[in-house]
């Protein structure tokens, strides 16, 4: 951070702040200080230029390219109109990838939610050593999906009898399983590695949500005779956690839609376990390097994801971001203090 803080004012230093450009005609406002226009643009321009060059331009270009055939070249070769988009309607591999996402999300989202919320409640109820357990459960978040895949494929779920899963089965006299070799089994590998990697993160979100619940509520419930663990959870904890649940749900859905790393590392050749992003990667940068078709696919997937996010926001309340702006922490803090 020290280097970063030094470079920010460095820009300012080249153009002395107090000497504002002559005749800058900003309308005087209550908080306007001289030099505000110059300062505004100096602060905003670096980000703005990058945003235009690496977000706006690529997307516009890619949209243009999506109407053309462009295999292995950035130069459009033949205008195909909406042909690239129409391709996806008839491409089974694409529809399969959406089905894969749907089934996968239907499983991974509730399971992650339940496990991380359960662990958060468990850890939050510990009278001592909370920090230790929180750290232990949070530690996998530091690992990359590549490292996770490596451990899962080569050690935990290797097809060899010496793998952890197979030796555990061996204790019960069950023959070794080739975990990544066939359908129901590879899902166990894919789901468990993701759970290990992401549960800690969502647990921390839930912990934060739990600790924001005013203790007064529990005290009041106790006076009303609600002290049993489950009823406390049902009538106080769960309703109070609603904003966190909505945020976690959205994050989990988006994360499931963007699943890529562990799929491409664990089951690179199985077309039936191809989530949308892996499918898109194969179309755009696989053997075909079909940039025109890939551009159309990227637009379609982007649109789907934006719609999912918007729908979710509509049905389950505000996204985490909005929730934060609407409910300032200061007010909540005031209640509990």
């Amino acid at each position: 951070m020290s280097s970063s803080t030094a470079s920010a004012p460095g820009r300012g230093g080249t153009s002395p702040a107090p000497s504002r450009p002559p005749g800058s005609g900003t309308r005087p406002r209550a908080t306007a200080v001289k030099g505000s226009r110059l300062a505004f643009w100096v602060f905003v321009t670096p980000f703005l230029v990058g945003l235009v060059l690496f977000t706006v331009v690529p997307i516009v270009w890619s949209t243009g390219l999506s109407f053309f055939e462009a295999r292995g070249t950035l130069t459009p070769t033949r205008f195909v109109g909406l042909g690239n988009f129409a391709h996806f309607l008839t491409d089974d591999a694409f529809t399969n990838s959406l089905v894969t996402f749907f089934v996968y999300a239907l499983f991974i989202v509730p399971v992650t939610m339940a496990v991380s919320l359960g662990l958060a409640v468990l850890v939050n109820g510990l009278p001592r050593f909370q920090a230790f357990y929180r750290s232990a459960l949070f530690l996998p978040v530091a690992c990359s999906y590549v490292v996770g895949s490596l451990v899962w494929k080569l050690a935990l779920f290797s097809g060899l009898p010496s793998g952890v899963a197979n030796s555990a089965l061996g204790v019960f006299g069950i023959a070794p399983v080739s975990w990544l070799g066939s359908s129901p089994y590879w899902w166990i590998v894919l789901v468990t590695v993701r759970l290990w990697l992401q549960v800690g993160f969502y647990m921390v979100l839930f912990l934060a949500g739990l600790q924001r619940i005013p203790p007064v509520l529990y005290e009041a419930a106790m006076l009303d005779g609600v002290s049993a663990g489950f009823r406390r959870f049902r009538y106080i904890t769960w309703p109070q956690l609603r904003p966190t649940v909505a945020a976690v749900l959205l994050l989990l859905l988006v994360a499931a839609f963007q699943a890529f790393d562990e799929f491409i590392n664990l089951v690179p050749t199985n077309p039936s376990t191809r989530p949308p992003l892996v499918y898109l990667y194969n179309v755009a940068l696989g053997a075909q390097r079909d940039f025109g078709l890939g551009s159309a696919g990227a637009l379609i997937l982007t649109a789907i994801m934006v719609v999912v996010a918007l729908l979710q926001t509509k049905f389950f309340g505000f996204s985490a971001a909005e929730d934060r702006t609407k409910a300032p922490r200061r007010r909540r803090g005031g209640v509990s203090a």
Partner: protein
Amino acid sequence: MSTAQLSRPVPRAAGTGKRQAARTGANVARYAAVTLVALLFLLPFYIMVKTAVSPAADIASRTFVLWPSDPDWSSFSRVLDDPTFPRAMLNTAVMAVVLTGGQIVLAAMAGYAMARIPNRAAGPLFSATIVVLLIPAATTFLPNFLIVAKLGWVDSLRGLVVPGLFSAFNVFLFRQFFLNFPKELEEAGRLDGLGYFGVFRRIVVPNTLAFASALTVLGFVGSWNAFLWPLVVAGGGSGAVTVQVYLSSFLTAQTFDYSGLFAAALLSLVPVLLVFLVLQRWLVRGVAETGMGGG
């Protein structure tokens, strides 16, 4: 200390002996459950260390070996002697540090201006940032690849770093942060004769460090562990291979040096774990404050 205080939401009522016993019983069950899960979560780390130090005989064994018969640490030096691995680590470190630092500086400046410097363009610019925020980064890898290819940056550190420097998400977070930034502090600085840049450097930056540190940890972990973009930019060549792409190449090809591979995986974790352990308190608070992050 705050966690300890918060961990007991219900003040301990003067309980009867029976109640006390029930509470103790519940606690024992709670600790047993959470310890079991924690052990499960830590198991993969143990397996990594175990495999990295296992002699060849253990790895070739037909049965599961819980404890290496004769720990052999040479796998670590073997990995470090192979020139590709240190090179990949260096690339990743440069990428993660520049990306994280750059994202924070650019976003802090833009977010501050949008929140605190009166300008007619601030509103429209913020709206544009929100629109960009909605576009999922994962699906823009192809458009970004096209531009990077056009610029001739494929398989280069520039290609890895530059497109990721502009984080609309961080701008959003910084703007929200600065909206709540106490005005009095800035006004005090103005009374001392500071202009916008002086106020930013002397007053705003020092008071933003804690918030920025939380974002720094999230950004560092995210970019260190990034896989899709490095694979797109540097997957084919060797000029800018990151450690994740390097490790992944052993998963798709066949490898025989298991202990070396797990040693490399462990070494790849060291920088993140260091950042994690040192700044964990901040990270947890930061995750809570920002509501989400780029895990």
